[in-house]
């Protein structure tokens, strides 16, 4: 697995897609940090970009990568190496490459413009760490989709659908539920709903560290209280990890049972 990881990782670092991914985020965040009036506004704008694009890029590139490795897989299956170590090596190589590109592209402009987060290490940790976890989660999803659906076209459209569902549809559903049950106290329900979607969870975690959080009223206060506690932090970390582990396990299960033809 380690050797596969190394080969794939170096190979990926030279790939055009990863370079483009890095370049795009780099330019984007440079622009944001250059023109944003305050650190808080910059992080807000960057957050929008991250929650929109990271899932999309990971889903599309993840499925594409897995489909394109078909020949490589067939070659390697003839060698004395298991399916799981091979594909996990690829998975970690891909997440590391994209994750590294993301961290550098977000981190360099921050350093270049000397953006202090007012000593809020939590904001930086949540922003960068949460972004990395998003990569892991959506690449795992992508691999699961690619191994489950043989037809490329169907695979791609499934990943796009999942992207739309998690980035737009889920919020619409929550909005609908909030409107439907507005007569009841909803803070706990909304909180649980935010924990169940990695995109929303990352957004809310970062928002809590921005001064925008004061606009969130008493729901925001309930959130602040929850995320302020140790158990709240662990629960949200757990929720994000579940979004990585669940698709990864499903992927491995499918991988083991798949009849390669």
């Amino acid at each position: 697995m380690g050797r596969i990881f190394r080969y794939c990782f170096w190979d990926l670092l030279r790939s055009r897609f990863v370079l483009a991914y890095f370049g795009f985020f780099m330019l984007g965040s440079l622009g944001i940090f250059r023109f944003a009036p305050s650190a808080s506004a910059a992080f807000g704008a960057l957050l929008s970009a991250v929650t929109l694009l990271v899932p999309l890029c990971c889903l599309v590139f993840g499925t594409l990568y897995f489909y394109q490795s078909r020949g490589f897989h067939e070659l390697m299956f003839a060698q004395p190496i298991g399916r799981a170590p091979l594909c996990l090596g690829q998975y970690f190589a891909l997440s590391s490459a994209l994750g590294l590109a993301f961290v550098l592209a977000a981190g360099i402009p921050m350093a270049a413009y000397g953006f202090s987060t007012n000593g809020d290490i939590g904001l930086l940790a949540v922003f960068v760490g949460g972004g990395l976890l998003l990569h892991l989660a959506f690449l795992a999803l992508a691999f699961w989709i690619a191994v489950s659906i043989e037809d490329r076209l169907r695979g791609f459209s499934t990943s796009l659908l999942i992207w739309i569902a998690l980035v737009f549809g889920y919020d619409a559903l929550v909005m609908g539920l909030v409107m439907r049950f507005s007569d009841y106290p909803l803070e706990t329900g909304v909180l649980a709903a935010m924990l169940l979607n990695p995109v929303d969870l990352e957004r809310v975690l970062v928002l809590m560290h921005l001064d925008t959080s004061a606009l969130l009223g008493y729901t925001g206060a309930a959130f602040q209280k929850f995320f302020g506690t140790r158990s709240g932090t662990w629960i949200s970390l757990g929720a994000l990890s579940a979004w990585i582990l669940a698709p990864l396990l499903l992927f491995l299960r499918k991988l083991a049972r798949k009849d390669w033809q």
Partner: protein
Amino acid sequence: MRLRMLFLVGIIAGFGHGRSASKRFDIGWNRPFKTLREALAIADSNAVLVVHPGVYPETGLVVNKPMTLRGMGWPALDARGLGALLNITADNVRITGFVFKNVGVSYLKDQAAVNMTGTRGARIDSNRFVHNFFSIYGSRSRNTRIDNNDITGRYNNEVANGNGVHLWQCDSMTVKNNKARGHRDGIYLEFTGHSTVTGNLAEKNIRYGLHFMFSNGSRYAENTFRNNGSGVAVMYSNDVRMEDNRFEHNWGSAAYGLLCKGIEDSKVRGNIFVENTVGVFQEGLSRVQFEENAFVRNGWALKMVANCDDNVYENNRFSGNTFDVSYNSSAHNSNAFHRNSWDKYRGYDLNRDGLGDVPYRPVELQSVLMDRYPEALILMRGHFLTLLNLIEKQFPALAPRSLEDDSPLFPPRKDS
């Protein structure tokens, strides 16, 4: 000749004698009077009590004749947490140059460093107030000037903390160039009409920088209200003028730059609202004119409840606010917006008259939704809401149609 000289000397002497009627009492450890209490006991009307440097432990002093109390070199009157300090019951008293300290907390009496009851023509100027329950307390007083005082409260909580300047049932008061911080309310006026509050700085007060109720015909101008727990509250008054004030950084889930409730026939002009959670919260406002105010980087610039009617907003500048206006009805609106500058305006000006050709609708869908379903605020900055907003911009349905600026400035003025 000699007789005439004698007469002149007599006049001068007589004049001198007249002046010496305002007799001077010196108070200090090496002076004729060791404490202010001794001097107050025997001083006549129009006396001048000069207090020299030192710390004077005192409580419950009464000033019941017109006189001047002057501190030289900041003498301190220290109540040591035991009670109140000065109680003024006479007219035309002037207090200047003192440090008033440590007036004790009481849950039965409003103990103050300087208390005025039913007086006229007092002048409290250039004093320092440190760590008192109430600092300056006036009730049923008139024509008083309170200026250039530096007031620092107890910074603790709303309950065991009084107000910096507290005026109740007064009239024609002037509160000018004071600094008030760390009190419950920095400056508090209730039933205090025809008064002016100008040039003051109220910051870091636990509740309101300025709290203003049932005070008709009053004016406050050129004050700065900064970092107060809940900002400034102006309630149930009419004919109020609020001009050229700065409302800065009153930020928090229950903070407002300016909370207006039940205000009628008033004018809000030339104020600057920067970085408040809500710039102006408005409930039950009627016939109030908002002119030439700037709303910069607030959460909500204006948050209006639909019982506001016939208010006019002209020549205001809105920039960098998360929401410009929120309004909680989609049916009725009688408020008018003209010639404001909105940084979010995306219209055009074909005839180049400096006014946009399409109206600007400042109430966004998301602010309508957020008002109705506050829990949904958690979806803010989510992509679904952004999408909805775009759609609403094209096909407005939820905000009242009449709530729009019919002649927005074009191009919008830049942030300064």
